[in-house]
């Protein structure tokens, strides 16, 4: 049943009794052409595009818990494509273009809100880096602007741009096409659309092993039994190393907690996304009214989705430095996700030495924005058994050759 205002009006007449399940809850089949491990946004998008773009519909997405319960369901929802290196810029821009029509494509309102993403510069080094990025991004055909301090103030009046603060705002870059989206809706929308195309979404189905014959995969062991597959795509974010180990691979990945928090909901007060590296905070306001605030990763490896107090304290200090008026707002909830961090802060979407085993991981702290794009190129990679040109550089081999795609943003070093 198509979602529409008309449908809602009809539903109002009969207590909304007729809305069908958004996706089926099927029993696992003995085998599929492709098994996708991980029912996050990336996995579900991969399945959707496999079916839609490549006609591969005999696909299962196996999810150990509930779909969207990983990082897809716990991120700060920032979407942008203002990346430095060509490889990244083209990939994220493809993704951003997909975002721009996603609600209609999926017939599910993902609330993609292009309210702009602003990155603040607080010292001369920041400013240089910012110029470098903006210049590169614009030449790549992606929108990006430089804002002076006064323009920052005009665009977002509640930021403290006083020159007297510890790290004054010296300028900013702005990508107006960037913004936020309703994270859960992305998972659900892809799930529903994939389901319509015949994809089986298997929840509460944890992959516990990968079966191989020689160097070829033959299927996955799960808590719901063995499921055969000629091709397996691992899209397990924080758990990528665990899955890879089942296939006998080691990855250049470490899993870290990344924290976020929300305030109590208030009426609209912040109409854009503000990010600051030097003062270390990023914040936006959700449509429901909470301030959504992101932190940095905890230093240690962890699979526990637990928050810590010290990170939140630092976060609040940084927030108040930039927005002194938020001091009397209150923390409503804090949480953590487990992100898979690559040494060069860029993802891996590639074939592996194990035949039929593909990995999509390493999105670290920033892969939500890539959800549609990642699914799109990964579906191509799996279906064609070779990468699309947009993900050709995001290989495992780059760690041997040294052809890294370093998106750390130049480290803050200076004489």
């Amino acid at each position: 049943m198509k979602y529409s205002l008309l449908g809602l009006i009809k539903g109002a007449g009969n207590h909304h009794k007729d809305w069908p399940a958004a996706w089926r809850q099927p029993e696992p089949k003995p085998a599929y052409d492709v098994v996708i491990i991980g029912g996050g946004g990336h996995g579900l998008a991969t399945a959707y595009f496999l079916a839609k773009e490549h006609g591969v519909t005999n696909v299962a997405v196996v999810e150990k818990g509930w779909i969207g319960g990983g990082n897809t369901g716990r991120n700060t929802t920032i979407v942008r494509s203002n990346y430095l290196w060509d490889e990244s810029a083209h990939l994220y821009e493809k993704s951003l273009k997909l975002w721009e029509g996603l609600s209609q494509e999926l017939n599910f309102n993902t609330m993609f809100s292009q309210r702009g993403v602003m990155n603040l510069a607080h010292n001369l080094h920041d400013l240089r880096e910012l110029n470098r990025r903006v210049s590169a991004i614009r030449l790549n055909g992606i929108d990006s602007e430089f804002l002076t301090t006064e323009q920052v103030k005009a665009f977002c009046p509640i930021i403290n741009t006083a020159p007297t603060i510890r790290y004054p705002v010296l300028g900013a870059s702005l990508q107006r096409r960037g913004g936020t989206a309703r994270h859960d809706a992305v998972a659900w929308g892809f799930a529903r659309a994939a389901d319509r195309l015949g994809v089986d979404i298997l929840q509460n189905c944890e992959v516990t092993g990968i079966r191989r014959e020689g160097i070829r995969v033959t299927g996955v062991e799960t808590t719901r039994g063995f499921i055969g597959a000629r091709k397996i795509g691992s899209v397990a974010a924080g758990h990528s190393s665990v899955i890879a180990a089942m296939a006998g691979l080691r990855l250049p990945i470490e899993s870290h907690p990344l924290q976020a928090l929300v305030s109590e909901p208030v009426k609209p007060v912040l109409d854009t996304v503000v990010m600051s590296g030097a003062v270390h905070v990023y914040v936006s306001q959700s449509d429901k009214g909470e301030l959504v605030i992101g932190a940095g990763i905890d230093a240690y490896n962890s699979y526990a989705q637990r928050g810590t107090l010290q990170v939140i304290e630092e976060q609040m200090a940084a927030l108040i430095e930039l927005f002194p008026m938020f001091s009397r707002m209150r923390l409503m909830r804090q949480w953590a996700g487990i992100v898979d961090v690559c040494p060069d802060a860029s993802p891996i979407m590639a074939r592996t030495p194990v035949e039929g085993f593909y990995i999509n991981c390493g999105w670290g702290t920033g892969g939500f924005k890539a959800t549609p794009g990642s699914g799109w190129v990964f579906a191509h990679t799996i279906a064609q058994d070779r990468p699309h040109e947009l993900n050709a550089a995001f290989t495992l081999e780059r760690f041997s050759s040294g052809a890294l795609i370093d998106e750390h943003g130049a480290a803050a070093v200076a004489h």
Partner: protein
Amino acid sequence: MHLIACPWCGPRDEAEFSYGGEAHILRPEQPDALDDAAFANYLFMRGNPKGVHAERWVHTVGCRRWFNALRSTVTHEITAIYPMGTPRPDRAP
């Protein structure tokens, strides 16, 4: 805020320490002898286990000594602290 028992200074807040990643990754005696893949294995590839992790810490703000720890990446419980250069206490030698 983990509570980490520095072998010298005793239990201190995690904020006093720096994390050093996976332990027992020995720098090859002759790096030149490795091929690119083997070198990448040393430099980048990590076990990243879900469960007990042998890892390195340094008491940065305190005595500046490095040491190893076994810590669960699931519960964060620290079950052993042991000197650099000694084998994992939970594995047979």
